[in-house]
């Protein structure tokens, strides 16, 4: 059985959310601008330029070090990692090598068998390279196009011990890390390309394989699941697993061996002579950590009466947790219960379906929907319809209506007992479905449900189900 034991370690690179780059004053807000519009002599690697370290990047990394309970080195330094690639402007990356910022931390996750501590090996700060676009084709020749806007964006690299035991645990770790970094205010996971992961994976007793190039949270689980299957198949067939580097091809969901040449690296690290050493251990005492995901989860259970599951989901992302608290703020006692279900179960699904960020929906707008649900003015079904309309309007950039406006426009208000329109609909349904009526009279279970369904269709779901059942019974009896 031990031969099936999966062992996973991660190297996670996250862009630190500073205003300027790691070693120059160029803006990090490059995503909506043209290529090479956020570069200067430093991040373009022009001859004679020199790096100057962004203090904020180190402050951010120190926050992470404290949150992950790391030991900060007395003295750390930057080194050059030398290799040639067109996206690497200086032909070396300024990174940290044998004297990283911090070591020996821990992050607690909800593992496969309950709570577990994943050990952090080290944390260091480095610069991002530029971005390459591959052009041309085999017939007319291939070449690359380089955009150095990303070059010099500060990255934090967090390396774990091989403490995870399944692809799912790896994903859990990543989600927890993301949440922690966002709570610390040092990272924005919604920025495209802000996260990159390399994973080491082995089956106990076999060689270790490094999977590079994973750029999404889901990708980690996908890439590792593929690798587990591939490696186990090899073992089953009695074939050796080679120690190698593989690339994850996200679109195809597979990993592919990197050519052996790429694996013979000799990075010739040496201390960066243009930067001075760091002695920042004493900063730790001055760092006041904000409430982190675990604490907030516990508070959500205590303060809002959320279920453990809802609390975990809601606090698993900073934006979601903030959204929830803003939504219930006007009336915490009245709205918490309905909000927990509607945010954690309904809203997340609707947002994912639209690949939409929660930032696009104002909490007050959503509070409006919840209020109508809470007072019984609309049914759950209508609530979903209102929410979908709201999201679609925002997605399409149309004028945004309030929940009340949508309900009024589409007549979604819940029907009540003395609603003549509803009674007319019930009569119509009874008149059109002789067979169901006959079945009902014959005492067949479920026959009235069919009629309920028909009326719901005619009223677009705004009939209160209890009220509707009462009316149907009344009308059927009349007819009898």
């Amino acid at each position, binding site marked *: 059985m031990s031969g099936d034991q999966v062992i996973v370690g991660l190297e996670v690179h996250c862009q630190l959310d500073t205003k300027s780059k790691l070693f120059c004053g160029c803006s990090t807000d490059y995503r909506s601008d043209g290529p090479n519009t956020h570069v200067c002599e430093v991040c373009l690697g022009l001859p004679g*330029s020199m790096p100057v370290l962004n203090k904020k990047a180190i402050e951010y990394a120190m926050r992470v070090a404290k949150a992950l309970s790391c030991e900060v080195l007395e003295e750390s330094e930057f080194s050059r990692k*030398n290799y*040639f690639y067109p996206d690497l402007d200086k032909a070396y990356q300024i990174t940290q090598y044998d004297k990283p910022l911090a070591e020996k931390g821990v992050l607690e996750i909800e593992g496969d068998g309950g709570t577990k501590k994943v050990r952090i090996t080290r944390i260091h700060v480095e610069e991002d390279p530029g971005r390459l676009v591959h052009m041309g084709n085999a017939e007319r020749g291939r*070449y690359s196009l380089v955009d150095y806007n990303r070059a010099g964006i500060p990255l934090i690299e967090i390396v774990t011990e091989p403490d995870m035991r399944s692809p799912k645990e790896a994903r859990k770790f990543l989600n927890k890390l993301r949440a922690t970094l966002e709570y610390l205010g040092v990272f924005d996971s919604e920025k495209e390309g802000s996260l990159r992961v390399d994973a080491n994976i082995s089956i106990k007793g076999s060689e270790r394989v490094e999977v590079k190039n994973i750029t999404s949270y889901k990708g980690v689980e996908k890439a590792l699941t593929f690798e587990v299957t591939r490696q186990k198949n090899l073992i089953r067939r009695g074939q050796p697993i080679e120690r190698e580097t593989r690339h994850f091809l996200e679109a195809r969901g597979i990993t592919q061996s990197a050519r052996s040449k790429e694996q013979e690296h000799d990075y*010739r690290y040496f201390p960066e002579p243009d930067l001075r050493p760091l002695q920042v251990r004493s900063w730790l005492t001055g760092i006041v950590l904000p409430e982190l995901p675990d604490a907030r989860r516990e508070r959500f259970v205590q303060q809002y009466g959320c279920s453990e599951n809802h609390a975990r989901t809601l606090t698993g992302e900073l934006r979601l947790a903030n959204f929830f608290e803003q939504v219930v703020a006007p009336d915490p006692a009245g709205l918490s219960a309905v909000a927990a279900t509607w945010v954690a179960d309904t809203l997340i699904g609707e947002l994912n379906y639209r690949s939409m960020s929660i930032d696009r929906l104002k909490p007050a707008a959503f509070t409006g929907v919840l209020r109508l649900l809470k007072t019984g003015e609309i049914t759950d079904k209508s609530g979903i319809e209102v929410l979908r309309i709201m999201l679609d309007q925002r997605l399409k950039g149309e004028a945004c209506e309030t929940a009340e406006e949508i309900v009024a426009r589409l007549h979604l208000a819940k029907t009540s007992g003395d609603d003549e329109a509803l009674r007319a609909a019930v009569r119509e349904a009874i008149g059109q479905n002789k067979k169901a009526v006959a079945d009902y009279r014959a005492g067949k279970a479920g026959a009235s449900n069919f009629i309920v369904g028909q009326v719901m269709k005619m009223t677009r779901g705004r009939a209160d189900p209890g009220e509707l059942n009462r009316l149907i019974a009344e009308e059927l009896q009349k007819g009898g």
Partner: protein
Amino acid sequence: MAGTLTFSPDDRFHAFLTTCRKTEYGDGPLCGIPVAVKDNISTKGIETTCASKILKGYIPPYDAHVVQLVRGAGAAVVGKTNMDEFGMGTTTENSAFGPTLNPWDDGRVPGGSSGGSAAAVASGMVPMALGTDTGGSIRCPAAFCGIVGLKPTYGRVSRYGLIAYANSLEQIGPMADSVANVSKLFSVIAGHDPRDSTSCARPYAHEPSADIQGLKIGIPNEYFGTGVDPSVADVVRKAIRRLEELGATTVPCSIPSMEYALAAYYVTCTSEASSNLARFDGIRYGPAADSKKAWHEAYREVRKAGFGPEVRRRILLGTFALSSGYYGKYYAKAQVARANVRADFLRILESVDVIVGPTMPTIAFRLAEKSDPLSMYLSDILTVPANLAGIPAISVPCGKSDGMPVGLQIMGRHFEDERVIDVAYAYEQAVSA
């Protein structure tokens, strides 16, 4: 008063790679003074090549910090001077654009790597120039061409815009026809620059003083040992006696780490250079890499064609010294050796004020005299210790041997550039009186 300077010199020693025929200048302490700038210092809008084919046509979009300062002080930057390619050499023969000749004897080299700046001053085309000194590149040509050159304390002058050869060793410094002019130019370029993290807030505002009464001078026997031409040593000893006559006292001393200082220097500078010069790949500047080829192949072609043999040799040496399995034997060991050199100098400078000896072991070589790389490296033995230790060192003319100038080298404590300038000034004033 601001104005325009016309500059069309008879550059028969090939001191310049680029000259600016008309240069505007402003008001300030260097108002209207023509200043030549070594071609590894970035000048906005003026081609900056490091005397290398790989930077032919490169126009920096920004000024080096020192160029901003010099222009701000009213000087007219009149041209870019020839040098050994990327500063790698002791003769200026390693320029991709042909050697500079020594104004004292055009069959000889001007020294290097700042040979163009030295020749421009020595031939009277400019009174002052900027050079750079990684292992003697200001002091050697100053000695060979009979001018004054200062390698400042490491960190005293911003390196921002200096195209790096060996970052941890090099400094930009003034070269001039007199100690007073060296001092004047130094007062403009010294000081803190936030864009150079190794620069210090130690500006220089000093009027040279010729009073060296009571000065204690250390005379290291290694500076008069094997390899040092006896007639050069004689000239220097005479100069030291002159300093004694001016009220200084001398004590012999010894620098045991001199034995391996040159090896430590060459391992360090080639290692740093191998990394610094990796960026020249023909993508962002310089001659085009063939984009149809795969990157390594394209780079290898550009870098073979663009770098001269000495540059390629040093890149390979440095790459080797940093490579897996050799780092400990070469690079790491060189850093320990360097720390020992520094410690030796600091120890000696606790009991003496300055250390004095010859700048170069010989007079200027004949053109093409030194063809073997190692024997060329050995001629840097007396200048590299100051770079390893980071201390200030000045070369001031102190007589002739065989009709060629000899330089007196004065080294001092960290950030006591003022003192080495004073000693040079005292000597200069004494002999010109």
